[in-house]
């Protein structure tokens, strides 16, 4: 049993500044990486920057576990005049998730990038990756609604370009990146419009202040429109069904470095922000909020879980299967949150972390195989297990976890979701989770069947085991999938603290 209260305590001076250092660290590292002379140095800087951010995130998590939510006034100005960071249990959980995904991705990129991108571009790729990371970390820690937009864009602009450089392997990365850019920008702009309406109604941008003022304001057309714009805008960014059109392309064709990072974090941070607005900023009793959750969010999430799982079953390219599966899993996470109970939210957040972990494992394993195997279709991966047993094993661990096999993290995650749905009396949500799990079993079965039980056709190119630098993080993540399946105290604590922070005062 690991406890965050006792796990780690950084020096007080460092802890005091940890929230901002967590964002500024990768940002500064990005500049240094862009200035660095060779691909190798930029990779080292990238790993260092990511590790620094993870260290800070760990310090914050410990601090939050011990003393509750952390505030940080940037520039020394108290909100609402200044921009304040506000990190509670939920923010700490997200920060830890994003920064550890960053560490894994950056370590992994040392070898994978060389196969995917021309060496002269590496310094800039690492810089863009670090900016993306800094943006997402800023997004989860800021307490200012407009500042969140700025960080959303910092992370997105880097991500668009990074997806587009996948063109060296497959030119379809370019239209996919363009589509991602258009959808992402529309989403961000709708979010800004929504913030504008909230600002018109309240005169403030600080989330805590917004919340306090909205509570006294009551219902008005401006507030309702603001709510709608924010939710739709973030829904696009979070790939909420039916606004997920950009995701399969971006995840299928981008280089592994960015895909594994985005798959683990990008949609999740937008879900985080959306949850922040729905549960924290808007008053609890607002009729439109409750109606939205009951009549829009939950049905759409359920549709996503079912429809996209079916779509994944019929896809032929392995990364597209995983991408559609991501949209479906986003649906499951949102279903958990839409229960609006502590149990439901903690199940949703637990699922969020579990999904990040397993999708990262899967994309990493596929990326490792793709270094030697110029293939995309599932059929081309036939019999890979014989040539690259370690990668295939890691893939199997992630896939079993995704399918919810017992003794894996995925099983626990699905179980808690079911439990929470039944506990809240929402039978149809429980049924949806069950059906989605069965569908997941179908496409996971297809993938595992191809990789393990089929033999490669004669004359087909054979895979070679991924290099150690790639294999090590994959195996670590695969191990975590199993480890957390046996002892889930760590993610459980995080999810529980996050749910409590999100739904302070709810049953």
């Amino acid at each position, binding site marked *: 049993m690991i406890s965050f209260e006792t796990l780690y305590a950084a020096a007080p001076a460092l802890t005091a500044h940890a929230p901002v250092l967590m964002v500024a660290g990768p940002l*500064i590292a990005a*500049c240094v990486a862009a*200035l660095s002379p060779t691909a190798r140095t930029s990779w080292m800087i990238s790993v260092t920057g990511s590790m620094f951010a993870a260290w800070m995130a760990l310090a914050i998590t410990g601090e939050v576990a011990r003393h509750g939510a952390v505030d940080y006034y940037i520039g020394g100005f108290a909100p609402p005049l200044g921009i304040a960071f506000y990190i509670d249990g939920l923010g700490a959980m997200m920060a830890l998730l994003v920064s550890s995904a960053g560490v894994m991705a950056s370590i992994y990129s040392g070898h994978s990038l060389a196969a995917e991108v021309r060496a002269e571009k590496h310094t*800039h790729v690492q810089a863009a990756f670090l*900016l993306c990371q800094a943006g997402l970390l800023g997004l989860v820690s800021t307490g*200012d609604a407009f500042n969140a937009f700025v960080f959303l864009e*910092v992370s997105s602009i880097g991500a668009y370009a990074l997806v587009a450089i996948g063109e060296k392997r497959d030119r379809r990365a370019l239209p996919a990146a363009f589509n991602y850019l258009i959808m992402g920008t529309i989403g961000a702009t709708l979010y800004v419009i929504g913030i504008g309406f909230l600002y018109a109604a309240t005169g403030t941008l600080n989330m805590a202040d917004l919340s306090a003022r909205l509570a006294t304001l009551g219902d008005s057309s*401006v507030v309702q429109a603001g709510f709608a714009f924010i939710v739709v805008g973030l829904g696009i960014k979070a790939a909420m069904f039916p606004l997920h059109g950009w995701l399969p392309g971006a995840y299928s064709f981008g280089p592994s470095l960015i895909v594994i990072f985005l798959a683990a974090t990008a949609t999740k941070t937008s879900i985080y922000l959306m949850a922040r607005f729905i549960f924290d900023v808007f008053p609890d009793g607002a009729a439109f909020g409750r109606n939205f959750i009951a009549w829009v969010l939950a049905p759409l999430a359920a549709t996503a879980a079912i429809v996209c799982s079916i779509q994944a079953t019929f896809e032929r390219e392995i990364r597209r299967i995983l991408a559609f599966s991501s949209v479906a899993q986003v649906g499951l996470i949102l279903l958990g949150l839409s229960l609006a109970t502590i149990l439901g939210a903690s199940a949703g957040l637990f699922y969020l972390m579990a999904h990040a972990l397993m999708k990262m494992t899967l994309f990493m394993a596929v990326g490792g195989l793709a270094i030697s195997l110029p293939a995309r279709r599932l059929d081309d991966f036939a019999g890979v297990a014989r040539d690259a047993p370690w990668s295939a094993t890691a893939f199997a661990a992630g896939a079993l976890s995704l399918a919810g096999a017992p003794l894996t993290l995925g099983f626990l995650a699905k179980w808690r979701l079911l439990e929470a749905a039944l506990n809240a009396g929402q039978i149809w949500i429980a049924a949806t989770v069950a059906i989605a799990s069965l569908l997941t079993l179908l496409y996971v079965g297809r993938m595992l069947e191809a990789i393990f039980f089929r033999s490669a056709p004669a004359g087909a190119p054979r895979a070679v085991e991924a290099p150690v630098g790639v294999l090590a993080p994959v195996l670590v993540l695969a191990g975590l999938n199993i480890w957390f399946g046996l002892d889930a105290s760590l993610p459980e604590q995080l999810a529980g603290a996050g749910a409590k922070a999100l739904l302070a005062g709810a049953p």
Partner: protein
Amino acid sequence: MIALPSSLNANLVIGIALLVMLLVVAGAIVRTRSLLAAIILFSIYSLVSAVWLVVMDAADVAFTEAVIGAGVSTIVLLGAILLTRGEVEKPGWRALVAPALVCAGVGGLLIYAAAGLPALGDPASPANAHVGRAYLEAAPKEIGAPNIVTAVLASYRGFDTLGETAVIFAAGIGVALMLGFGPHASPLPPAATIGDHHVVLRVSAKFLIPLIALFALYVQFHGDLGAGGGFQAGVIMAAAIILHALVFGLRDTMMAVPPRLVRSIAALGVLLYAGVGVACMLNGGAFLDYDYLFPPAFEKQVPGWLLGDPEHAHHWGQHFGILLIELGVLLTVAATMLTIFYGFAGRTVEAIRQERGA
């Protein structure tokens, strides 16, 4: 309904007239099939909206919109249609019903909300009464910069501006990744073949370039007194160099201001900005708290005459902090704009062919 002072009415009429112009221009952009026309119309759109912004008292925003919207965006768009060699859009919409429904939905929601928004110019609206007013009252005392917009931009919301500088930096990296590398990037492009008949252009450009650079510096250092600041100055500075490239050829410009150097400067700008933040932190303040920019011991040793008016002495840190971070913004913006320009302009037709063959 509040009683409106009579002087609003002239402004109101001008504002409405400009909005009608914007509507007409936007309609023309939707209708036209020529991309070139759409780009020029977009430039006009930006310029007209800049005028409207002046009417709405948003001098800084108008300035930015004019240099960025009507200036940089137009250049980049023109570069893009040159490189995509498609001046005319293919006739026929892809689909009309679904987009029209989406727009109708969003538009309906906007107008639904508009009815509940405060009247234009309402001084008692929540937006104007709460934080906005607090800035107007607090900034002269706490920051000391006469331009409140600069005070808010650089100090109260300095972190936003850091993020924004990072966005610009990211865009520079993105464009460099897309267009700036490759076989064609190392050798310089061929010298431009501008005929003698452009002699007027060349002579006046020689005269104008230093003037533009000077004006950029004016805008930079005048930013806390009047409209202006690092963003506008950075774009203007880049414009001076872009003018050089347009008139004397990209080759000469790239020799004088090499792309690699420019990309490094962009990173240095963000580094300077973030560095100021870290320096404040090391001196015991919060990140970007310029009051702690200089250690107290250091401030005591500075002779009084340098601090100037003792009444404003406590703004010293704020003043220099804003100056430094605006310098960082200038460096990043100018370098990034130039990177973007190099990216588009450097990708000549030959280079494309070369890359295809490779």
